[in-house]
């Protein structure tokens, strides 16, 4: 068994302080080995995005890590000085965001948005940065890279923007990419293309990916291993075919049952029982609901 690239243990995150604190992550354990794609699946509001943000250190200012460790290449990120932690981003850890149309800066040309990370963070000079930017764009299968470099984000489609974001993420040849619902905002055909692209680049570079999504179909297509998160807790994890084929936890079963099926159109849509409401973040209610699923 190879050593973990990233090991999250007992991670707790709270929003607010003192009596009004809401625990949005409680005791999350997660492991990613080098070069594997780990799915993190759950409903909206389940805390899956927060896991990604805690790993990258980009939690909103109102949220604080209250417990746990995040070991990345055997150093605890939570004990690193803020600056050292920031310097891991762009080089060893990268991000892909959900909304490609808003993830790129509307007033900067695509060229500047790719080369700024190359020149400022990865030591390229202007000339070689441009060449590498062109190379990256071809790598994400953008057909007219010269033209795209001169364009602004609003001149590109959502799928194209996401390709640019992916190119930026892979630019520093990172060991880990946190992909936060990278296909959710795209239409289905583009979704498939982007999934294929991420899988292809991941295989080529050997980068590990934490793939955050609510879509089990996407998980089945791309992830080696998957963790199911609910109300800030990991309920079940394992190899993708095991978790989806023989879900052990009732919540996972409900989640699978809720996926629309083309082969059984008469079955209708099955809602996941229970609701993720504010009161759920109260510990008692959360464990009640977990019990009811069990």
């Amino acid at each position: 068994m190879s050593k973990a690239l990233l090991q999250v243990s007992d991670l707790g995150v709270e929003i607010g302080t003192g009596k009004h604190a809401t625990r949005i992550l409680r005791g999350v354990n997660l492991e990613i080995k080098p070069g594997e794609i780990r799915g993190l699946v759950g409903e909206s509001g389940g805390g899956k995005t927060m896991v990604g943000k805690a790993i990258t250190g980009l939690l909103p200012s109102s949220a604080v890590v209250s417990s746990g460790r995040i070991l990345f290449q055997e150093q605890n990120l939570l004990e690193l000085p803020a600056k050292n932690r920031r310097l891991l981003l762009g080089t060893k850890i990268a991000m892909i965001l959900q909304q490609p149309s808003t993830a790129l800066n509307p007033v900067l040309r695509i060229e500047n948005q790719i080369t700024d990370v190359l020149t400022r963070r990865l030591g390229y000079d202007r000339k070689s940065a441009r060449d590498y930017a062109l190379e990256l764009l071809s790598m994400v299968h953008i057909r007219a890279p010269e033209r795209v470099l001169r364009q602004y984000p609003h001149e590109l489609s959502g799928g194209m923007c996401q390709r640019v974001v992916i190119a930026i993420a892979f630019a520093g040849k990172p060991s880990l990419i946190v992909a936060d619902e990278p296909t959710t905002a795209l239409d289905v055909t583009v979704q498939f293309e982007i999934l294929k692209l991420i899988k292809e680049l991941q295989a080529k570079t050997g980068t590990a990916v934490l793939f955050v999504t609510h879509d089990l179909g996407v998980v089945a297509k791309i992830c080696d291993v998957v963790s199911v998160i609910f109300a800030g807790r990991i309920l079940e994890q394992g190899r993708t075919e095991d978790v989806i084929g023989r879900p052990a936890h009732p919540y996972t079963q409900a989640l699978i049952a809720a996926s629309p099926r083309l082969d059984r159109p008469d079955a209708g849509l099955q809602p996941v029982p229970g609701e993720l409401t504010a009161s759920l973040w109260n510990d008692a209610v959360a464990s009640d609901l977990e019990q009811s699923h069990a």
Partner: protein
Amino acid sequence: MALPTLLGVMVVVFVLIRVVPGDPISMMISGEASPDDIAKLREAYGLDRSIPVQFLYFLKTVSTGHLGTSISLHQDVLELIMGRLPATLELAILALFFATVLGVSFALTSVYWRGRWPEVAVDAANALALALPEFLWALLLILLLSVSIPLFPISGRTDPSNAAVFHTQFYLFESLFTARFSDFAEILRHMFLPAISLALPLTAVIGRVLKSSLLDAINQDYVLLARAKGFSPLYVLLRHALPNALIPTITITGTQFTLLVGGTVLIELIFAYPGIGNMLFGAAINRDLPLMQGITIVFAVVFILINICIDMSYALINPRVRLD
């Protein structure tokens, strides 16, 4: 759009200054003039006609590129204005420069150190700058920096003893571009207080609008992505958040800048600064109708030009409105 606006301004100004009380002829003659003389003078200036007819005559004059003859100064209005306009423009531009530099630094300071003491300090300074109108700032600054601590001169544009020769009326720009730095410093010292007084309220407006736009921008996805590239907070703020936040700020700065130009009238009066605002005040005292309407129309032209500049700068910074 500019021409109809200008025509509208001319109508309003023309009618307004003729229906308010006050007679230019009675201001220019001595007590012994006979009713006959007065009638002759009125006829000479066309003031015996009805207002619509006077307006048509005025339009005819304007179409030949003139604005008439001043009643109190007996000179061509356009020449009078052109002699004074550069001084006012320089003052307004210097004030805009101060307001932009101060306002942008205020906003950046308070966003970069948000939640800490610099934000509180800057917000307090901003509220203070906004609380007083420019003419009160002028009086306050004179008391503080000219009377109590005599750092700055309180009137004029240069020292009367200064023998420097200028080829244009743009003293500040000319001395700067011809590298006559001692003259430049001298003129800047004279313009500092009036420009700062004009700039302070605009500084506060720029500071506030830019701050709220910046706070909005730093919560956007593109800033999150910039942070995920590992850039320093300062670089993210300056390179990724600021250009976006400037878009709404430029719009408001433009409209507020026209108010600033209007504010030059009182400021020039307070500092005895030889611009067209000061001249407008003199024209109003003397009921010099041609001069008043000339200056007002020039102000209108300046306002329209400012708005065109804003539209152009908007397209410059926001690629989404850029025309191909």
